[in-house]
């Protein structure tokens, strides 16, 4: 039995700590890269608020609306809103 244990143990070692480390790192690094390339914390709330204001007056679907905050050269930040308006959405 001891001999069998010896071989089994060896096999189990293949999925040990190093692969666990790699898996954890891949997840956290991907997550941190995303938030790095992305936007400030307030952006989701800002998006929500702007959409609510717009919807008081016009119909805006989620797909026809986009918002982004871009860093241009130097200290210039540009907040860009794209709203697609469809013909049938008359504002009366």
């Amino acid at each position, binding site marked *: 039995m001891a001999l069998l244990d010896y071989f089994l143990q060896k096999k189990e070692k293949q*999925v040990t700590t*190093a692969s666990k480390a790699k898996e954890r790192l891949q997840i956290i690094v991907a997550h941190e890269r995303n938030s*790095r390339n992305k936007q400030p914390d307030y952006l989701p709330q800002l998006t929500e608020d702007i959409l609510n204001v717009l919807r008081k007056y016009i119909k805006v679907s989620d797909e026809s609306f986009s918002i982004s905050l871009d860093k241009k050269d130097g200290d210039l930040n540009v907040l860009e809103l794209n709203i697609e308006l469809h013909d049938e959405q008359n504002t009366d």
Partner: protein
Amino acid sequence: MARIIVVTSGKGGVGKTTSSAAIGIGLALKGHKVVLIDFDIGLRNLDLIMGCERRVVYDFVNVINGEATLNQALIKDKRVSSLSILPASQTRDKDALNKENVGKVLEELGKTFDYIICDSPAGIEAGAMMALYFADEAIVTTNPEVSSVRDSDRILGMLASRSRRAELGLEPIKEHLLLTRYSPKRVEEGEMLSVEDVVDILSIPLLGVIPESQSVLKASNAGEPVILDVESDAGKAYQDVIDRLLGETVEFRFLVAEKKGIFSRMFGG
């Protein structure tokens, strides 16, 4: 035009200063004019690793404040004449450095030297940002260990967004991965991230793999950069790093554990 290379990592204790010293000596031995700058203001250590701690008279901050000229502050290496060291200040606070005055010093050094190696402090504070700001290339020193890899990725983000090259929209900093304290035996046992794992996660080109080696501690004890220990694995691995930095293609060594002979297996070795 001098090549400005920052040796950085985010995490402390991974081998930035050891690597800076080895790379500085290695490049100088190839006949290049090299200056090593210690950016760790307040925690000067490059002088100790280089073995010139008793010869420090003026430092980086003295030069910036106009209290000394560059020539007065630069320490010529006693082993390799084409290598100079600009030590960090031990007393002043790190706010002494800013982009304007550091830029001026680097420009001045660029007139004389082929390579300017910036040994970064750990962390992502002002000192580390200053060390990487002017870089053309970055050697990201990483241990095969979770916190070091994560911090290296963080630094890669900084290189891409906070450097001069990023701000001016120039060609990005050329990134190199230097994996240090690598233990092939532990990798084979599944206890340590492998070279492939780390390259996979950080996805930057591999410059070198330095095996965990007792010669590194011996080298710093003596103030003789480990690359001068030509018999040691670590010394040879740094030599390969130099050749790759100079554009040669060199096969990676010391990636597999040495096989133990039957006798040492039986009697323990």
